[in-house]
C-alpha cells in the first residue's frame, strides 16, 4: 500500500497523533518568535499554542482551545506554482496554486477555492475585501464565512500581501457563535505584530 493511500485512509495521522506526545509548543505572551519557517516574526499579546502538525511546508497553525474553536494559520512566503497547504494527493486531490500572475485582490478567491477543495466545503462566502497594510506592505484584508462538514458555520478574517513575488498571509477561523468574537481582538493584535525581516 502506498504512503499516500495510507494518508487518504486516515491511518498514519491516527498513529502520529498517538506518538507525538507533548509535541505542541507554548508561544508565550511578549516573546517574539519566527513563524512558518519564514522571515516573519510575531510577538503575541497572550499565550498561544503552536501545533506540531504543519498544514504545509510554509504554513503553521496556532490555537487557543483547539482548531475546531480557534485556528490561526500563518502562510510564510508561498512561492509561485505552490498550493497554500500540502496536497493529500497531487493526482487525485490537486489544490489550486498561487501563481506569478495572482493579484493580491485574488487571494480571497484562492483561499476560497483551497478551502472548498481541501475541506470539501459546499458553502463559502467572502463577506468583505478591503485594501490594508500587512507586514508593512500594501495588501488586503478580508472576511468570510464557511460551513464545515460538522455543520458548524465558521467566520474568518485574513490579511495578505504579495512581497517579492511570494504570498504572505495570516488567517483566523472560529465558529461564528461566541468563539469568533471572543478571540478576534487577540488575532488582530497578533497580525498587527507581524514583521518581515
Amino acid at each position, binding site marked *: 500500500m502506498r504512503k499516500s493511500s495510507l494518508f487518504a485512509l486516515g*491511518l498514519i495521522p491516527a498513529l502520529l497523533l498517538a506518538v507525538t506526545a507533548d509535541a505542541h*509548543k507554548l508561544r508565550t505572551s511578549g516573546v517574539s518568535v519566527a513563524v512558518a519557517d519564514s522571515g516573519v516574526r510575531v510577538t503575541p499579546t497572550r499565550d498561544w499554542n503552536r501545533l506540531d502538525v504543519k498544514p504545509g511546508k510554509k504554513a503553521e497553525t496556532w490555537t487557543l482551545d483547539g482548531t475546531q474553536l480557534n485556528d490561526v494559520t500563518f502562510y510564510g512566503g508561498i512561492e509561485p506554482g505552490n498550493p497554500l497547504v500540502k496536497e493529500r494527493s497531487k493526482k487525485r486531490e490537486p489544490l489550486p496554486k498561487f501563481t506569478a500572475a495572482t493579484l493580491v485582490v485574488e487571494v480571497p478567491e484562492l483561499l476560497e477555492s483551497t478551502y472548498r477543495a481541501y475541506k470539501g466545503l459546499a458553502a463559502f462566502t467572502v463577506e468583505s475585501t478591503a485594501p490594508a497594510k500587512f507586514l508593512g506592505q500594501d495588501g488586503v484584508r478580508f472576511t468570510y464565512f464557511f460551513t464545515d462538514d460538522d455543520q458548524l458555520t465558521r467566520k474568518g478574517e485574513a490579511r495578505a500581501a504579495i512581497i517579492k513575488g511570494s504570498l504572505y498571509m495570516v488567517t483566523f477561523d472560529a465558529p461564528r457563535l461566541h468563539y469568533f468574537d471572543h478571540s478576534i481582538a487577540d488575532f488582530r493584535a497578533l497580525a498587527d505584530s507581524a514583521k518581515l525581516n
Partner: protein
Amino acid sequence: MKLFCRRVIAALLLCAVSGIAHAQEKTAVRQGFELKRNSQKKILVFRPAVSVGAQSTGGMFEPNADWTEKSKANIRIALEKFQRQLGNEIVIAPEAYGEDARKVEEYMALFSAISQAVIEYQFFIGNRLPTKKMDNKAGIFDWSLGAGVADLPGAKDANYALFIYNRDAYGSTGRKVLQVLALLGPGIAVQSGEHRGYAGLIDLKTGDLLWLNADSQIGGDVREPDGSEKRVRQLLEDFPGSAIEKEAAK
C-alpha cells in the same frame, strides 16, 4: 524476522493506543461548580442529537436514515427513564421551529465541537495543548458556548441546559477486512467503527460548560433498545447530583 518484528510493533502500538483511550479522562467539572440533589435548580433538556451510519472502507461516514430513526426513538425512551433520576427538576425544551430550530441545531454542533476539542486537546494526555496543561495543573476546566445560549427556546424557564450528542459509525465489512489486512500486512493499526457520545451541562446565563462527559469510544449499540439504555446510562451516570447507578454497581 523483520516482518515479524514489524507485526509485533504494530500489535503493541494498537494495544498502546487502546490503552491510552482507556486511561484517558472522560469527565470534568468546572472549578467551583456543585449541584446537589433536590437543589431547586431547573434543568432544561434538549432533544438529543443522534446520527447513525456506517464507516466505509476508507473511513468515511455514510448516514443510514433507518438506523438513525430507530436510534432516536430508542434514546428518547431511555432518556425519559433516566432523566427522572437526575436529582433535580427537569424541564423539557419546547419543540422548536424555523429560526429557533436552526439555532438549537447550531448550538448542538458547537457543543459537539467543544467536546471534541476537550477530548483531543485537554483529556488526551499525549496531545494536550501547553495552555490546557497549565489549566489542568491549576484545576481549571474553562470552556463556554457563550452567553447567547440565554436566547435558546425554553432558556428563560431554567437554570441549566443538558445537551446530549451521539454519532455512531458502524464499521462496514470492508472496513473490518481492512482492519485485519492492515495489521497483518503493512502492520498498521486501523480502527473500525466510531462511537461518540457527549453529555454536557451548560449554565444558561453565561454559556459556561459546568460538567462534561465526553467519550469518543462509548458503549451501547444505539440501534437496539438495550444498547440505547446502556448508552444513556453511561452518558449520565456521573451527572452531578444524579441518582443513576453505575452499570457495574448493578
